[in-house]
């Protein structure tokens, strides 16, 4: 019986360094050295073990940048030339050392180089990815990958940008190996909350953390790092075992410091005359490591010649020692924990062979020791372990990494902190570009794809690391600058519609990794192939639809359905009739059926409406009409929606625009209780819920006990044309009597009273300021009294309900629009003001808080803080250039994030996701047990 498992993990990564424009670029040598000293020796030993039928299990992470370089013909050709140069140097070294104690070593190096050359060119025919694949197929390696360019996730700001790093990495790995891995290596083991959600979305089952990343979890993990824990998103996190790490890594007590091992720092590249070395070095001016190192560490100043056979013995001894230590550790932990521990020992692959020349020998001997498992310790991969011991302990993990200090100090300090203001800005821009150009084609698409590549490359953790450690600093700095500069030049070309094709080609030729990359990986909404799904037939149920518009719901359904029809979807709306419109008509491709409804009181009317809707649906069914999906809006159509779900078997999507509880801050009357119960019932029965803001998602989830992942957030949209806005016109010009506008119901939660109280303070600074309050509501009388109390009757107008044309005119004249809400599920009026290019000041609550970015495209203030409200209004009235800046940014936001065409596409994705899920469960009968009870 296993008493414990040892999971050896090697992470192989190099930054993408490829310079086709130069014959020899010094930094390309990183790859050639790693190939010669690490990757080839490692592959050699793994294949040897397989040939000898020695069973072992090992996890190897191969970074996408490394994979890109390994499959690049230019680089692989240059590597062959590199080997040839070294072989030529080896010949000269034989001559030079002949008759000295170093001659056997020269022979040793020559033989080693010949072997590597033969393996690379003949055995694996330059295809090292294929060589790794064979090992996986032999059942000895578990292959995983990491972020696209090894971006350090805690310092990547946006969710979309993190996702792009993760997804692109996985896609590239899949393109190389034909499958997606179950594990993921976080670059530098850098974790921050939220990363697990992205990994879960990509189907990742596990990742690794530094020891303290696990030990600082809350609640604390009962088994320490010796069993995986589950993150909130359900991904397993495995922590590094500190003991096995120390034995290999520690510069003082670690094995690599043994006196019989090769001295890393004595290389002929720094010791022999320049003229002798120059033909074999990659640069005309710089000495570098050649790999010809003739001394052992020795333990004193005067070094002795290196003796490979003695070092080989030491490596075997160290392997035995390591194995014994792990066996004893596993046995001890088994007795303490009552279960077999997993001892996770992750290392940089480049340690083996490059930094620690004898590392591959040590590893080979270790793997040979693991073949029997007689002492109860077995080699395993995390996947193996998770199959047998699935984690159950769920915990929250905080920021951690395996860098110096354990967090982000290495990648964020005065040597490299300047990088982030650029990359963060690029991230945000890339996401906006996805909104603006969701279907780019041709040259524009190529430019956007290349911009995405340049961003990914700028994010490599390697540049910040190099800047910190201080070696080849200029190269790292140049690389960041190059990618940032390329990015903006490409983006400006796209935005100005003046793409420089020659420059684009130059970028594509040089930074050519991920040739299949689709820039939309940065989209906050679009998923792959989202627009190429088959046409859907969707039935909408809504009690409002123009011309019947009572609140914002009818307008929302109207805009969404027309936008969906423009996506060539087959859309039918079932709604309530009005005398002035026919029972059936088509509006911009949307089929609208209207039912006649009568009722003595509100509830009877609702019941009749649902009954009429059910009858119409039956008629449609009898006429041979069928639908793929039902999309209902708010509780009033609940009965009809539940009937259709149950009787017609239609998957049900429900948009909850607001809740009864939220509107009133609680449930106080029997009618409210009835509505609340209906809302809850509909939320429970729906297959998927749509909310317009994260705030509403939290509210719906909390009120009705619905899981958060059943709720999708799709904001409301706005069409500037409906507000009479055709393009950029800017805010209203300065005026001695600037107009402040409020639009909304006159109820306390809309906060108009705060605005009235702020007005005297505003008028102290801007004496001519006027206020118009548009809307009706039971609170109007109280507001009028408030106006009197504040002494501002002469400059406040109660405009009552305003029609579309009046609203347009008011917004055109308004210097500032204020929405001082205390409760707001979304805040469509604020969005409309932004679309009308009016600067906004809003209460920092609910959906408004998500809509406006403070100081960037509007101002937010704590609800009720009328002094601060006044302050912000004054600033916007005084500084019209600031107002114009806000309006410009808001206008961009309106056209990108809140464009209906765009949001309809996102809605379509949600539909397709739901239908795909339904197909997966294989024609599951949609049951509504509680729905029956309701009827």
């Amino acid at each position, binding site marked *: 019986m296993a008493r414990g498992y040892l999971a050896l993990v090697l992470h192989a990564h190099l930054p993408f360094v490829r310079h086709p424009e130069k014959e020899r670029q010094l930094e390309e040598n990183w790859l050639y050295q790693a190939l010669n000293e690490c990757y080839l020796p490692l592959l050699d030993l793994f294949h040897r073990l397989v040939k000898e039928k020695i069973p072992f299990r090992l996890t190897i992470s191969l970074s996408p940048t490394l994979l890109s370089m390994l499959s690049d013909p230019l680089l692989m050709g240059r590597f062959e030339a590199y080997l040839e140069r070294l072989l030529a140097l080896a010949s000269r070294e034989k001559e030079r050392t002949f008759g000295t104690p170093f001659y056997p070593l020269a022979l040793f190096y020559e033989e080693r180089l010949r072997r590597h050359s033969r393996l690379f060119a003949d055995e694996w025919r330059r295809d090292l990815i294929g060589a790794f694949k064979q090992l996986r197929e032999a059942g*000895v390696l578990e292959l995983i990958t990491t972020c696209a360019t090894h971006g350090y996730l805690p310092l990547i700001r946006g969710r979309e940008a993190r996702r792009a790093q993760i997804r692109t990495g996985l896609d590239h790995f899949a393109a190389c190996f034909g499958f997606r891995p179950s594990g993921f290596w976080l670059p530098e083991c850098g974790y*921050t909350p939220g990363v697990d959600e992205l990994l879960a979305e990509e189907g990742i089952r596990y990742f690794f953390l530094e020891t303290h990343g696990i030990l600082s979890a809350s609640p604390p993990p009962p088994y320490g790092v010796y069993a995986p824990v589950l993150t909130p998103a359900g991904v397993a996190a495995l922590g590094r075992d500190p003991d096995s790490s120390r034995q290999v890594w520690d510069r003082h007590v670690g094995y690599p410091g043994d006196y019989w091992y090769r001295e890393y720092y004595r290389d002929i590249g720094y010791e022999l005359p320049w003229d002798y070395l120059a033909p074999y070095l990659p640069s005309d001016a710089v000495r570098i490591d050649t790999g010809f190192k003739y001394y052992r560490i020795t333990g004193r100043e005067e070094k002795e010649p290196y003796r490979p056979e003695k070092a080989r013995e030491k490596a075997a001894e160290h392997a035995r020692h390591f194995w014994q230590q792990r066996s004893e550790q596993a046995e001890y932990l088994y007795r303490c*924990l009552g279960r077999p521990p997993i001892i996770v020992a992750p290392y940089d692959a480049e340690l083996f062979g490059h930094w620690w020349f004898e590392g591959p020998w040590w590893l080979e001997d270790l793997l040979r020791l693991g073949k029997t498992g007689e002492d109860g310790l077995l080699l395993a991969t995390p996947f193996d372990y998770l199959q047998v011991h699935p984690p159950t302990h769920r915990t929250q993990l*905080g920021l951690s990494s395996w860098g110096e200090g354990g967090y982000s100090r290495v990648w964020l300090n005065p040597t490299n902190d*300047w990088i982030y203001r650029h990359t963060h*800005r690029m991230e945000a821009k890339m996401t906006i570009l996805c909104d603006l150009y969701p279907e780019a084609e041709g040259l524009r698409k190529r430019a956007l794809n290349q911009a995405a590549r340049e961003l990914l490359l700028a994010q490599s953790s390697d540049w910040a690391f190099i800047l910190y450690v201080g070696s080849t600093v200029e190269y790292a700095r140049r690389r960041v600058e190059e990618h940032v*500069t390329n990015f903006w030049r490409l983006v400006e070309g796209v935005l100005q519609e003046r793409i420089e094709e020659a420059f684009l080609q130059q970028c594509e030729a040089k930074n050519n990794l991920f040739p299949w990359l689709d820039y939309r990986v940065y989209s906050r909404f679009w998923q792959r192939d989202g627009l190429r799904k088959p046409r859907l037939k969707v039935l909408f149920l809504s009690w409002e639809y123009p011309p019947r518009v009572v609140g914002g719901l009818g307008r929302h359904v109207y805009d969404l359905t027309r936008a969906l029809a423009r996506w060539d979807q087959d859309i039918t709306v079932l709604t309530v009739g009005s005398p002035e419109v026919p029972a059936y008509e088509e509006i911009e491709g949307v089929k609208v059926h209207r039912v006649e409804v009568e009722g003595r009181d509100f509830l009877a009317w609702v019941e009749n409406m649902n009954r009429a809707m059910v009858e119409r649906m039956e008629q449609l069914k009898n006429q041979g009409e069928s639908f793929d999906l039902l999309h209902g809006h708010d509780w009033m159509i609940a009965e009809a929606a539940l009937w259709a779900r149950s009787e017609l078997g239609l998957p049900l999507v429900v948009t909850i625009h607001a809740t009864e509880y939220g509107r009133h801050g609680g449930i106080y009357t029997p009618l409210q209780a009835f509505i609340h119960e209906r809302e809850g019932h509909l939320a429970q029965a729906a297959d998927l819920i749509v909310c317009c803001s994260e705030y509403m998602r939290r509210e719906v989830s909390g009120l009705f006990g619905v899981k958060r992942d059943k709720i999708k957030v799709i904001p409301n949209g706005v069409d500037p044309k409906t507000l009479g806005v055709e393009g950029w016109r800017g805010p209203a010009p300065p005026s001695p009597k600037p107009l402040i506008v409020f639009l909304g119901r006159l109820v306390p939660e809309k906060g108009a009273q705060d605005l009235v109280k702020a007005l005297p303070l505003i008028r102290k600074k801007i004496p001519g300021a006027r206020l118009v309050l548009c809307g009706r509501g039971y609170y109007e009388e109280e507001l009028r009294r408030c106006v009197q109390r504040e002494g501002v009757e002469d400059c406040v107008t109660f405009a009552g309900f305003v029609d579309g044309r009046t609203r347009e005119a008011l917004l055109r004249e308004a210097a500032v629009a204020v929405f001082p809400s205390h409760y707001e599920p979304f805040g469509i009026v604020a969005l409309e003001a932004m679309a009308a290019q009016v600067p906004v000041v809003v209460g920092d609550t609910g959906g408004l808080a998500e809509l406006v970015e403070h*100081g960037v495209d509007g101002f937010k203030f704590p609800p009720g803080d009328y002094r601060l409200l006044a302050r912000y209004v004054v600033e916007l009235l005084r500084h019209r250039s600031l107002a114009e800046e806000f309006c410009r940014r808001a206008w961009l936001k309106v056209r990108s994030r809140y464009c209906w065409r765009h949001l309809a596409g996102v809605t379509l994705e949600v539909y397709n996701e739901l239908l795909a899920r339904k197909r997966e469960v294989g024609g599951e009968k949609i049951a509504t047990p509680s729905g029956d009870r309701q009827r």
Partner: protein
Amino acid sequence: MGESRLAGGYGDNVLVLLSREPSVLFAYWELSPATQLVIVGKKWGLRLWSRRGAHLTLLREVFPSFFCGDWYFTELEAGASYRCELGWWENSFFVPLLVSDWTETPPVPVPWRPPLPEELPEVRLLVEAELEVGVGYFSWISPLKKE
């Protein structure tokens, strides 16, 4: 070490707070020309707030001199939430012009030792033992042995 080829700023309003380690946060900001006009001549600076549960505490006030700059906040508490504001003072009244997102410093690790056998519930021992029975763990051994 400064920048060379890259833009000094993008003409936008930005205030970002990043968590570096349990006791250190890093803030960077940029003010657009129009926003600079708002605060020019005023006493302006950064304020750092911490949040524990619902309790907010004003921790620091600093007065940098650049419209596009950065700042390291040090000696902070681990495992707490922080937010930075950039704004100006009017007498004692602070007007936030930019506000960062809430950012958390990571918690510090808790030392761990394996529990002693007597600290383990017997039930768990039994359950774990059952899990081990017949797991057929190393399925990969078979194909190699067959050859």
